[in-house]
């Protein structure tokens, strides 16, 4: 109990004193996860919409795989990305191992199925409503995809938040591919892991509180800008 209190106090002082290392680590955390999130949404949203509006042979199999991939263990993803980018691996020449780029790639792999799956679920319901109308108006497939994405934007924001939450709190994969190198690839979660193993619980807790408040502020900011829960139906 005492340690939690100490952690809170230390977190407070770290934030108030604008500790340069804390700021660097937090910004790196944000940079890695937000970049991964951006790439994921660019892939996942159109992919989910395409699966919704297209009938093809193995559609149900693809959806089942997508849903299963939501539970992809981060450590395994980290291991695979590590092998691919390690010196003797197929993409070893790129020299990306132990860089933030490798961390971004690993997180993208982890959160893309999650975002695609949540997006698919909500757009499928919307498509059930819209299908007859959009076919009747003689829309093209890209127009249907655009309409579905635009009109389910609130649900897509939620999908983003889910992806962000999974990314920012993730430690297994980025530890393996990033290596938790000071001033290079250390982020909040890997720092917490390190401080815990070193026995500095109050610093670990302080970093933990910073991580939680970061996640909360991103969520609040998104809801604020997205004007959710304010008037209207959605």
């Amino acid at each position, binding site marked *: 109990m005492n340690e939690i209190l100490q952690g809170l106090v230390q977190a407070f002082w770290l934030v108030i004193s604008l500790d340069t290392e804390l700021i660097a680590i937090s910004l790196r955390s944000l940079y890695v996860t937000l970049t991964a999130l951006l790439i994921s949404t660019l892939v996942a949203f159109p992919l989910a919409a395409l699966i919704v509006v297209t009938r093809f042979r193995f559609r149900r199999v693809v959806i089942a795989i997508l849903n299963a991939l939501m539970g992809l263990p981060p450590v395994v993803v980290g291991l695979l990305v590590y092998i691919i980018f390690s010196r003797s691996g197929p993409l070893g020449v790129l020299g990306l191992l132990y860089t933030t780029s490798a961390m971004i790639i690993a997180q993208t792999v982890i959160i893309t199925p999650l975002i695609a799956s949540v997006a698919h679920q909500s757009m499928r319901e919307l498509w059930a*409503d819209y299908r007859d*109308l959009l076919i009747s108006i003689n829309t093209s497939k890209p127009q249907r995809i655009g309409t579905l994405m635009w*009109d389910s934007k609130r649900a897509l924001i939620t999908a983003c938040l889910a992806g962000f939450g999974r990314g920012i709190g993730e430690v297994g994969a980025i530890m393996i591919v990033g290596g938790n190198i000071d001033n290079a690839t250390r982020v909040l979660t890997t720092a917490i892991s390190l401080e815990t193993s070193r026995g500095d619980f109050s610093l670990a807790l302080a970093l933990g509180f910073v991580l939680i408040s970061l996640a909360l502020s991103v969520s609040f900011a998104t809801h604020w800008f997205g004007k959710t829960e304010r008037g209207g139906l959605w």
Partner: protein
Amino acid sequence: MFPLSISRVEISVKSKKLLGPINLVINEKGITVVLGANGSGKTTLLEALHGLRKLSRGKLEWSVPNSQAAQQQSFVFQSPIMLRRSVIENLIYPLIVRRISKSIAVEEAKLWAQKIGLENKMSQQAPLLSGGEMQAVAVARALITKPKMLFLDEPTASLDGLAKKTIEEILIIAAKGGTKIIMSTHDLGQAKRLANDIIYLHKGILESHGPKEDFLNSPPSDAARQFLAGDIVI
């Protein structure tokens, strides 16, 4: 685009025949009303003519290529499908899909909003309107592209007198302006007010097609006679 010739069209679902065989020629002018009891195939016929249903047998031929005919048609569903957007955005949608500039589309939509008496609700979310208002938006959205052919599936089935009157007036003006209208209804009064000719369906079979007066004065079958007399047709 006209005439539309329908020859030996049949629609079956899982080897159960819902409609047909239907032979029919639809000409350019006026309002054709499709009458019949529940389950007589009215909706199926309209959806088939519009291309929303795959034909099990037979063929539909416009005098122009199908892709061109599809551009010139609109459909109003029994329960209006509103995009989850504002009224004005619903109205401009078919124009935007046809790549008409947004400023022109908005001007046109404002005119239509006036015609249906919703000029004060243009920025309101369409799914929050009353049933009658939604159906009026659906009719306006169908007519905003100036289609040569408009299908309506029981458009006023659940509306009160005033809402019904608004929609009927718009339809009469559209028909005078050169839009061919085919609508289904249960409402014999509405058929008498609007129809130039009447199609009578009974259990998926087309029992008669001809001028309104002929149908009303000499109904083609016992079922039609019962329908006209207001009896329950089974």
